[in-house]
């Protein structure tokens, strides 16, 4: 199976204290730790496992500047055979539809049986996979936590729905799926793995190569635009305890005892 996996480079929100830059135009980007979006990493692992089982090829693509190349390389070190980078000045400021338009154009350049994205990324929108499917007129399923390959014509998939139940569907190929965390255990990428792919060429696709015009992507054509970032005025918020660990623990034990938290 030919599989395309779309990946995004994001500030790791588990590792970083994210704060707003003075004028609200952006978050403070200095000293941020970046990584591949958590959901995307599961998508790449799933693609690699399918290809290991059934044969085929995994291609990883990211829309971004040259910094995004680092995560494409990381996912190649996991076992994706091909990496692609979609970069062009006109892509900057694209909204979700703009990004999906770029990725759909890239998908059209190949002949993929399966296109995977993460279920969502740092903006929480959960939109790009479903948009790519619509742009390419392919069937779509979101939050997928199980993929069984069948006869080459369709897949049996599980979607993780509310309450942790699993919704089983058959879906025709080619199709687009967004992948939920927990579907597999992404393999570890060591320094040696990264070194192995360090000099592999990653082709850059620009607007001309993809045949996307400025009227479809970029800031000017974005229908959905962020005005600014801000920190909401906190409501009551938590009563913050202070002191050394020893003092904090004493205070907390007293509170827990009073609330019936210690039996």
């Amino acid at each position, binding site marked *: 199976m030919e599989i395309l996996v779309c990946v995004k480079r994001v500030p790791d*929100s588990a590792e970083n*204290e994210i*704060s707003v830059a003075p004028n609200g135009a952006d*978050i403070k980007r200095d000293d941020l730790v970046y990584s591949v979006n958590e959901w995307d990493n599961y998508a790449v692992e799933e693609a690699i496992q399918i290809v290991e089982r059934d044969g085929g090829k995994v291609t990883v693509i990211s829309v971004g500047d040259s910094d995004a190349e680092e995560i494409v390389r990381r996912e190649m070190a996991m076992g994706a055979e091909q990496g692609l980078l979609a970069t062009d000045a006109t892509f900057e400021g694209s909204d*979700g*539809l703009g990004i*999906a338009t770029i990725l759909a154009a890239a998908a059209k350049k190949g002949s993929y049986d399966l296109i995977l994205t993460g*279920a969502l990324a*740092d*903006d*929480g929108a*959960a*939109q790009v996979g*479903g*948009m790519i499917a*619509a*742009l390419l007129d*392919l069937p*779509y*399923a*979101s*939050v997928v936590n199980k993929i069984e390959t069948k006869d080459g014509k369709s897949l049996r998939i599980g*979607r993780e*729905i*509310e*309450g*942790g*139940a*699993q*919704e089983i*569907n058959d*879906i*025709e190929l080619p*199709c687009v799926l967004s992948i939920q965390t927990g579907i597999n*255990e992404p393999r570890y990428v060591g320094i040696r793995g990264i070194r192995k792919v360090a000099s592999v060429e990653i082709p850059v696709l620009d607007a001309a190569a993809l045949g996307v015009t400025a009227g479809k992507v970029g800031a000017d054509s974005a*229908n*959905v*635009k*962020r*005005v*600014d*970032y*801000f920190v909401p005025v906190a*409501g009551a*918020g*938590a009563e*913050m*305890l202070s002191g050394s*660990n*020893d003092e*904090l*623990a004493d205070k*907390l*034990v007293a*509170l*827990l005892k009073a*609330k*019936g*938290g*210690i039996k």
Partner: protein
Amino acid sequence: MNAKLFVFVSHRNGKADDSAFELASAAKTMLPGSAATAIVCGSGVDAVATEAAQLFAEVWKFDQSALAYPNAELIRPLLLEVVPAGSVLLLAHDTFGFDLGPGLSVKLGAAYVPDVVGFDGLDGTALKVVRQEFAGQVSAHVNANVANGAVVTVRSGAFKPSEVSPGGQVIDKSDEAAGLTAKRTFIEVIEAEAGDIDITREDVLVSVGRGIGDKENIGLVEELTDAMGAAMSCSRPIVDAKWLDKGRQVGTSGKTVKPKVYLALGISGSFQHLGGLKGNPFLVAVNKNPKAPIFQVATVGIIADLLEFLPVLTEKVQKAK
């Protein structure tokens, strides 16, 4: 704005989801004074349509056997046939909304405005909304150009459920958009397995999140839990990593719990996690990041490193008994 406003009503077991009540008030907040039309799809949905008519002035009912299970791949083409161009459609930002919404917006040529937590009014054709990014650590003002309509998904819990009042009208449209087919077929729903303990019945939960760092460190949480005589639950990454059973996961894709006391240890406070925490418990958050969103909702907050703090706390709890 003259656009027609719709709310997609999800339902289960003959009852409208909580999201329908929240979407009813979201619609009123988004465009005050406008009347939204509810869309109810399914098979044998009279009761749901009647219930929806207590929230919305007008309800469009699509009752077809093919719609017995809400397959977004069928419902999307149905909506494309019946929803006029330029409409604004509200749905829940849940796993059905993920399925339906993005593709629907593309096909309608409308803006997609996902995971909205607040509305700041309409300025010409700019719908002004509030969203959150980076796992809730910062918020953003976002403007959406709704000149060609919009598909808006609304976060659960962001709007107070609307009060019901009788009087809405149900319009049966079951004959419209009939005979649709999809390239995705629903097979079955497999309910989540019961775990080794039932955390939904526990009064005191000690909940561990990704901040614990390593599987080995779960032992520190276990010792505290034992000392307190409590039960251990967790956030999703702990289950994804297979460090604890799925039955212990609190959240929208896990269990809904109603403890009296809840300790959130190294949990950032995502809305998916908090969505499973009900009943307004005494909520203690321990986190090393002072900006963690969990501190906005916790009763008591402690900024500390779990690996250093937990052993101290466990010892004090043991002594206090």
